[in-house]
């Protein structure tokens, strides 16, 4: 008999009921909430006269709409200039207060992007099922939790029943073998994976990331990888629990303490795929082959190594694919054959649930220290993922390094990753961004996004175009 994958184990332990056609009720341990996808769900509860099934399983923080300049933040809700955004944030406050849900409000020191804050507070624990009305919930899989995004109807469903109706996904293993070369980061690994399997490559699967290169990453690096599992089409990404996981969680506010910690840690050590587990699909990459990546198009699968060039269309046989590439190049104002290093930039964004944690900021600061942002860069934002990340960075003097180099040091939030607040990329502008999506208009109407690692974004800020960060050492 074959063993179980990590996904099988978490699924089985949370199975409340399975119907004949495989539709199952799965118990949810943690529900994360933000202001954009929850108001209609709370309204649904109210209309039906329902209460949350287990209010303490919920954890809320506003992140998408909130301003990131300190002047605006000092004014509290009044500082949110867009009245529609302000209503959304205050509606979250009201709903959390009405339904007795824990919320880190906008100006709480611990507030931040929900996918940064959850793990930081220990609200994300191994073996949990975690959902949130946000596709980047896959981030939490880095701690061995089964975590994925849901729509607003399901947000209401989880609030009311503590369960989700689901069908089990298939199992995919992506193994990255060997040692990661210097200057190549978690972001480059995941962009290379998406470049290889495509944005639908993981559709229908839960992806477990394994292999030496993954195992050697910190939890923050693993979060960057799992965060973008959704960009490969997989709702959930997972990394098996090891000592690094336990070390990260121990002592965090929501983590178990004392004797309960010992028992939990013992149980969590089982959260690995059995050696004889069967995967429906296995993808292998060699870490040594991975170079710093840059996206050139309007889909995260449109990536190339920094040493390479934008692909030319002649060799693309599939008509739909060629059409997509043509459309992407037209939108991006680029042409096939252009060297990646020749792409000129106007803006730089360092932030988002993919890359706004302390290690990301350290990497970026290292590159810009003692240098100045290039003259052609009109805007360069550094937006920490949480108030605590910001505080830590300031205690290390990173804020000063960024400011002296000419970058703006902002308050925590989602910011220009999706530009729901005032931080927006102008039409036609090229942005080196550490975020996760380069869709048309994602960072602002007509904006042109290039996805890169924090070090690559920092290097681009200094040089005004992409440069191979490995050459700067």
């Amino acid at each position, binding site marked *: 008999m074959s063993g179980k994958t990590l996904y099988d184990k978490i699924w089985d*332990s949370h199975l*409340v009921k399975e119907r004949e056609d495989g539709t199952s*009720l799965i*118990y949810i341990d943690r529900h994360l909430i933000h202001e954009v996808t929850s108001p*209609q769900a709370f*309204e649904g509860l109210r209309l*039906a006269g329902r209460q*949350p*099934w*287990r*209010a*303490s399983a919920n954890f809320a923080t506003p992140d998408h709409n909130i301003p990131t300049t300190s002047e605006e933040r000092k004014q509290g809700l009044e500082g949110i200039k867009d009245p*529609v*955004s302000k*209503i*959304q944030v205050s509606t979250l406050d009201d709903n959390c207060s009405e339904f*007795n849900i*824990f919320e880190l409000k906008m100006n709480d020191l611990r507030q931040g992007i929900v996918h940064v804050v959850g793990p930081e507070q220990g*609200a994300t*624990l191994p073996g949990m099922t975690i959902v949130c009305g*946000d*596709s980047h919930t896959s981030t939490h899989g880095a701690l061995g939790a089964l975590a*994925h*995004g*849901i*729509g607003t*109807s*399901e947000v*209401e*469903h989880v609030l*009311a*029943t*503590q*369960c989700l*109706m689901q069908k089990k996904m298939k199992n995919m293993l992506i193994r990255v073998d060997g040692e990661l070369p210097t200057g190549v980061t978690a972001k480059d690994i995941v962009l290379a994976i998406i470049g290889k399997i495509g*944005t*639908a490559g993981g*559709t*229908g699967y839960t992806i477990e990331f394994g292999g030496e290169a993954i195992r050697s990453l910190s939890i923050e690096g693993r979060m960057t990888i799992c965060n973008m599992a*959704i960009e490969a089409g*997989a*709702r959930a990404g997972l990394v098996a629990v090891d000592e690094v996981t336990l070390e990260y969680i121990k002592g965090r*506010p*929501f983590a*178990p303490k004392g004797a*309960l910690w010992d*028992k939990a840690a013992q*149980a969590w050590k089982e959260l690995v795929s059995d050696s004889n587990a069967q995967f429906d699909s296995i993808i292998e990459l060699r870490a040594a082959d991975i170079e710093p990546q840059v996206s050139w198009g309007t*889909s995260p699968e449109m990536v190339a190594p920094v040493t390479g060039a934008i692909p030319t269309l002649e060799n693309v046989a599939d008509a*739909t694919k060629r*059409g*997509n590439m043509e459309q992407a190049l037209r939108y991006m104002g680029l042409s096939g054959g252009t060297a990646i290093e020749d792409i000129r930039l106007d803006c730089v964004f360092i932030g988002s649930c993919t890359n706004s944690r302390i290690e990301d900021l350290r990497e970026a600061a290292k590159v810009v220290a003692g240098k100045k942002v290039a003259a052609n860069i009109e805007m360069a934002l550094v937006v920490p993922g949480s108030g605590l990340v910001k505080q830590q960075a300031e205690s290390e003097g990173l804020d000063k390094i960024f400011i002296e180099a000419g970058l703006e040091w902002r308050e925590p939030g989602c910011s220009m990753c*999706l530009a*729901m607040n005032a931080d927006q990329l102008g039409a036609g502008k090229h942005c080196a961004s550490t975020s996760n*999506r380069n*869709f*048309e*208009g*994602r960072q602002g*109407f007509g904006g042109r996004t290039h996805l890169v690692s924090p070090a690559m974004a920092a290097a681009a800020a200094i040089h005004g175009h992409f440069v191979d960060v490995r050459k700067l050492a």
Partner: protein
Amino acid sequence: MKKFTVKSGLVMPLDRANVDTDFIIPKQFLKSIKRSGFGVNLFDEHRYLDKGEPDMDNSSRPLNPSFVLNQARYQDASILLARDNFGCGSSREHAPWALDDYGFRVILAPSFADIFFNNCFKNGILPIVLPRQTIDELFTAVLANEGYNLEVDLEQQELRRPDAPDIQFEVDAFRKRCLLNGLDDIGITLEDAELISAFESRWREQAPWYFAQSDNGATENSEAAGEHQS
């Protein structure tokens, strides 16, 4: 949930793969705290020539004449014919809300993104996965024949074409029942409330660390929280 009652409809082709949910409904419209009124901003960045904002008078905005949605022959379409990986990206349910509000009740594609696919069923929209070759045939037929309609028979899981053999499609038995009867998911799940409570008690014993108190202000205080009592 609204019952699925579609019997037939005009088909509109959207010949583009990887249509993401930002394409379907841009982020600025996600600031609404309502579920309705998103239809006029469906495909906003492609349908209009200017940048859309919430509370704009959309009737006076310049239309993009080359975008398929604006072509006279596709007005009142209720079936959307799409390409691979439709609905990828963000989990925003505003995407199916916008499609539904505009009038699309059936989406045909060779593949869908998982979260979007799931969100459709919660809103009485039927997403149908068809073989790539069938999708290609449909694109050809729709472009060649103005007013191309399909009959939809969810009960029999069949699409009927005017010009070619019927197409069988798959749909989960449970989802089909919910669509046909307009069943409320939460209501159905709460029929199993005892089962959920029993699971929860067992799980609380087996893995108490997931129910532990935090030292951070959030407490496991079921009475104060007015939590479910079984």
